[in-house]
């Protein structure tokens, strides 16, 4: 998949990309990490997830905020 070149400075395209590229219905299995040992990576990711939770407690400069959902 090629990188999308947005040199045409099309702000509409970028707003659309913001949606169709990583929002919308995902029927699981369509994101693939194509490197060798899947189990190893999955384990690693669990570790990462707790780090993120810890980080969210440390809230403050300079990391971007996660999406805040409100009902």
């Amino acid at each position: 998949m090629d990188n999308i070149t947005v040199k045409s400075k099309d702000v509409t395209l970028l707003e659309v990309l913001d949606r169709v590229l990583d929002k919308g219905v995902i029927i699981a299995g369509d994101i693939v990490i194509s490197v060798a040992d899947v189990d190893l990576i999955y384990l690693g990711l669990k570790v990462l997830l707790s780090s993120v939770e810890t980080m969210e407690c440390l809230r403050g400069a300079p990391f971007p905020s996660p999406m805040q959902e409100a009902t």
Partner: protein
Amino acid sequence: MKLYLYGIIDSSSMIRESICGLEGSGVYNIPYCDIGTAVSEINQPIPGVSKRLVLEHEAVAEKLMEKFTVLPFRLLTILDGRENVLSMMDDYYGDFRDNLDGLRGKVEFGIKVIWPADKVKSCIINTCGTKNRNAHLLDDSAERRFVREKFEQHKIDRAFREKADGYINAMDVFLGKFATAKKLETLRTENLLLSAVYLVTKDNQDNFREAFEHVRTARKDFKYLVSGPWPPYHFVILRRNSQPRRNSGLTAMFDKVILQPTLVGADKTWQ
């Protein structure tokens, strides 16, 4: 027969309007109980994500939105054969049904706000930067200077974020008033103060736009963008997917991460 998926719709009838999809193929409905999947047949492999593909996909989602409640698919969701589409709807029926009911008659608006980050920082530095309450850090060693500078930066960054939150909350008072749901992201970049999506009922679209105009005129030094109405890309929640699959992973750890079209066949082991 490869099928390109555009969205789940709350209808099991034929799509009467002629909607043109990828490769100029007609978009049609594959029904399941009282819902359906809007698809078109693709004959060529899709070589990459191109501007044309993105806009064609979105155009179909919007046309569907005119007549139906749509749960729009992510780009490049491709299934192999009608059976797999039916089986996918079977797997997700409850989720799809709930989302369709919850999103009926609602549309999504995007709001982005850019602020002058440099000016905000200068202002913060001028008002609180030079006071040095930590007298014991005035020692000259390189290490202490380093820490002192880090500490100053830490305070500035925190004040920066607090200011950002303040402005965002003020804006959200107006924008959130006519929204049934929202997602707000602060400072995705330093300058991009706010990146938000609001779920608004169709009846309230004008009220929402009015609220936006009010916000837009409030500060001359901020820059504003509004987009929409979109199908509710950001508001579809699938409970089923919140359980990680055994062999799946999260994104973008390596250069070789691919957004891969789903070619679901035999692998339907949900753990």
